[in-house]
Each structure stands twice: as C-alpha cells, then as structure tokens.
C-alpha cells in the first residue's frame, strides 16, 4: 500500500480543492512569503483574495503583480495591494508599474518607497511574465532583448547571440499565486474569459500553492471539456466560489459612467 501523498498546498486530496472561505484558503501564508497577484487593470484581479490576505495579516511579503493599483472598474473601498501596503505587510513589490501612469494619479506605494519602507523592483512586463513562465517550466534563467541599453540593465550580465545583445533574467518562482478565473471544476481545472487570462495561468504555473477565486458555480469534475481547459488542475490547489455582491467583490463600472 502506498502512503497517501501529501498534496502541495496543504494536504487536500485531489477531490476536494474547494474551500468554503477565502480566509481558510489563505490561512497558512507565512511571514516572508512571495505571492503573485494576477490581473491586468481590474480584469482577472483577485479582489477577494487581496482582502483575505490583508485580513490574514502575514508580514514581510514580496508581492508580484503587473501594478499595485486597480483601474476604473475597481469598486470604491475594495481591497487591493495598496491596502496591504498600508497594513505594513509588504516588504517588496515586483511590478511593471511602480509609478502612476498619469500625473493626476496617486499611488499608495510611492510614499512607502520614498521613506525606504518598501523595495520596488521594476520589471518590463514581458520579462515579468516570462520570468514566471520560466519558473513554472523548470527553466532557471533566460536571455531577452528587452531593457538592453537601459538603466535597468546597468551592471548586469548580457550576452551576444548572433549580432544582438541580450540581457540575462532569472526565473521568478512564487510561494503562492492568488488568481481569479471564470470557471473551475472540483479538480481545479480552470477557464478564463476574454482578457481575464493575462498573468493568471502563468502565476499558477510559477507557484507552489495556487489559490483561485472563481466567478461561476464550481462545476463537477468532467464538466469542462479537456480541450477547453486553460489551466489544468495540476497547477491549482485551492478554489473558492466568489459570493454575489455585497459579500463578494466584483468589478463594476464607475458610477459616473453613463449607462
């Protein structure tokens, strides 16, 4: 008899990846964890899991995300990385945006970086995606032409292939990925909708433990056709159905948007 194998992500069997609450799904995050948060603008952003990690209170976190703020469709007062930063939970961010894109915008991150309380690592977006893809694909490092000749490449290893110079970049493995999907079955097979896919499947591959907030009711195993699975359940450990508002967080058009 083979001893039952411990599943990555905390002893749940393959048949029961469903967690009853966001709080339960993030309970074991230790201080100092490296956590990826998916999403681009607000699409695919794990708003509910941001709230759960903020409430859970782990500190000294390294947070990886495209940016540290949402967009126009993030409901007012909803959780985001800014809240975790204000909680004093974040030691470092790794992002493609560490400053606002418009002069009129304010970023919570900026004042913490200015005071030396948070380290901000700025990474070109394609390099950020590929560093996590590499981590999920068992590749320790790669060369890319992005950022060659810029301030980001100063003092770093480059190499010429053919006639062109490339910059060495290292894989970026995650302890946890916090992502949002459109559909999931009980085995953790995921489907995303439209541009919701963005960083989410890549973070799931890069992470030791992937936690998913799911928009539709969780489906029985086999309900998603194998050809339609975007992220196989192998990469997914914990799934939580998002309750309808106001209990769960959902993107919404700004009140000022005429409808």
């Amino acid at each position, binding site marked *: 008899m083979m001893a039952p194998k411990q599943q990555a992500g905390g002893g749940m069997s393959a048949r029961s990846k469903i967690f009853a609450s966001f709080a339960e799904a993030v309970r074991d995050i230790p201080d100092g964890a490296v956590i990826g948060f998916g999403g*681009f*603008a607000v699409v695919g952003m794990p708003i509910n899991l941001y709230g759960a990690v903020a409430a859970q209170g782990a500190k000294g976190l390294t947070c990886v995300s495209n940016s540290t703020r949402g967009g126009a469709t993030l409901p007012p007062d909803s959780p985001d990385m800014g809240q975790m930063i204000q909680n004093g939970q974040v030691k470092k961010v790794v992002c*493609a945006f*560490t*400053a606002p894109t418009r002069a009129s915008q304010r970023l919570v991150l900026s004042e913490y970086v200015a005071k030396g309380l948070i380290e901000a690592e*700025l990474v070109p977006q394609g390099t950020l*995606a590929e560093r996590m893809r590499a981590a999920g694909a068992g590749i320790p490092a790669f060369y890319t032409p992005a950022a060659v000749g810029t301030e980001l490449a100063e003092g770093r290893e480059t190499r010429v292939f053919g006639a062109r110079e490339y910059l060495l970049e290292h894989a970026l493995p995650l302890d946890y990925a916090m992502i949002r999907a459109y559909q999931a079955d009980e085995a953790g097979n995921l489907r995303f909708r439209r541009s919701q896919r963005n960083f989410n499947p890549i973070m799931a591959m890069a992470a030791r433990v992937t936690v998913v907030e799911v928009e539709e009711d969780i489906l029985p195993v086999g309900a998603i056709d194998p050809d339609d699975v975007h992220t196989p359940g192998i990469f997914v450990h914990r799934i939580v159905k998002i309750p309808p508002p106001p209990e769960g967080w959902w993107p919404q*058009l700004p009140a000022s948007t005429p409808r």
Partner: protein
Amino acid sequence: MNERAKGLSRQQMCDRLAMEFGDGWIVNLGIGIPTLCSNCDFGDREIIFHSENGVIGYGPLAASGKEDMHLVNAGGQHVTLRPGAAIVHHADSFALIRSGRIDVTVLGAYEVAENGDFANWKTAGQQGGGIGGAMDLAACAKHVFVAMEHQTRNGAPRLVERTAIPATARGVVNLVVTNYGLFAVTPQGLELKEIAPGVTVEEIKTATGCNLIAHGEIPPVRRAR
C-alpha cells in the same frame, strides 16, 4: 485635453501615422495619444490590433452600456472583438512581441533623440516608473513609431540630441509624428518629411533640440483620402 492650437490635432497625428500601416499588419498601440490610431480609416487595408494583455484582433471601443467587464485593451479601456479575434495569456502575448510578430508599435514618448533612442517610462527625478510593455515592444517590434506633442508644457523640445531622462530603448525609433509634422530617423539624423499646416520650417527648427535635416521644399502632411 491639452490640445495645441498650432498644427495637427492628436487625431490628425494618428491619422498620418496610420497611413503607414501596411495591409495585414499587426499593430500594437501604446496608451495615450497612440490609442487614437484605432479610430483611423484604413480603407481596404486589413489591420489586426494586438494588445499586450493578450488580445489579438480587437475592434472599436465598446458603446456605453455594452461594456464586457472581462475585456479591456492595454489602457484598460473596454473594447470589442472583431471576427477572428483570439485571446492568449501574458507570456504568449509577449512571445508574439519578442519573436518579431508585431509589425509596428505606436508609442507615446517624453523625448526622442536624433539617433532613434527614446524615453517614455520615467520623468526627470521621478521615483520608480511605468514601463508596462514598452521596453519589450520597443526592442522587438519591426517598426517603432512615436506620436507626441512637439514640446513640453513648458516649451522645452521633445526632439533632442540625446535623451536626458532614462531611455526605454536605443536606436529603435523609425518615424515620429508631432503636432508640427512628420519626422524620420535616418542614418544622417532627424529629417523633417512633412510639415503641418500653419507652421514654418524655421518655427520647427526653433522648437527642436537637435539638428533638423530639411531638404528643399517640405510637402504638407499628407491626408488619407
């Protein structure tokens, strides 16, 4: 917003660049002025718009009340999909960029140098920055076009000898449109190709921070028929 009275409007700037898009080109638009390129009339040319967040083949902005909450472009605007559109994740989206599938990226910029260097991710003295996909796009697209105002709000030139703020990529810009005209980056330097109505070559030279090549009579900025 902040539309200069003199020369081309922002839409006219983008209309002119869009005339350079070839039939069947895959086009990536940066945020800001370049997004107006998706409003242009392409006649019988087929243009495929790619957005860094994995959307291939998007169409016009969604009408008010018809927004799909799962679908935005690189600027976070709710767009529509054209028939034949496809969605990929971020690593595949940038695989497409890095492997040279993008025919042109149109980007905004703070500064463009006469040798094709440009800067668009960080202003002077700013802490941190917003790179987004600009470094990947600028390094790997077949053509890099820039659309920007000719001068800063304070009247400083944006076309310069060397960028004073940190560069996004070196020697990559092919074509620049400003409200004053159309400029090509050539091995000899920056060349004025077409001039906006109501602007003189002397005015442009005064407002430009590098040597400007201007051969003979400069034609007016062409307009799409």
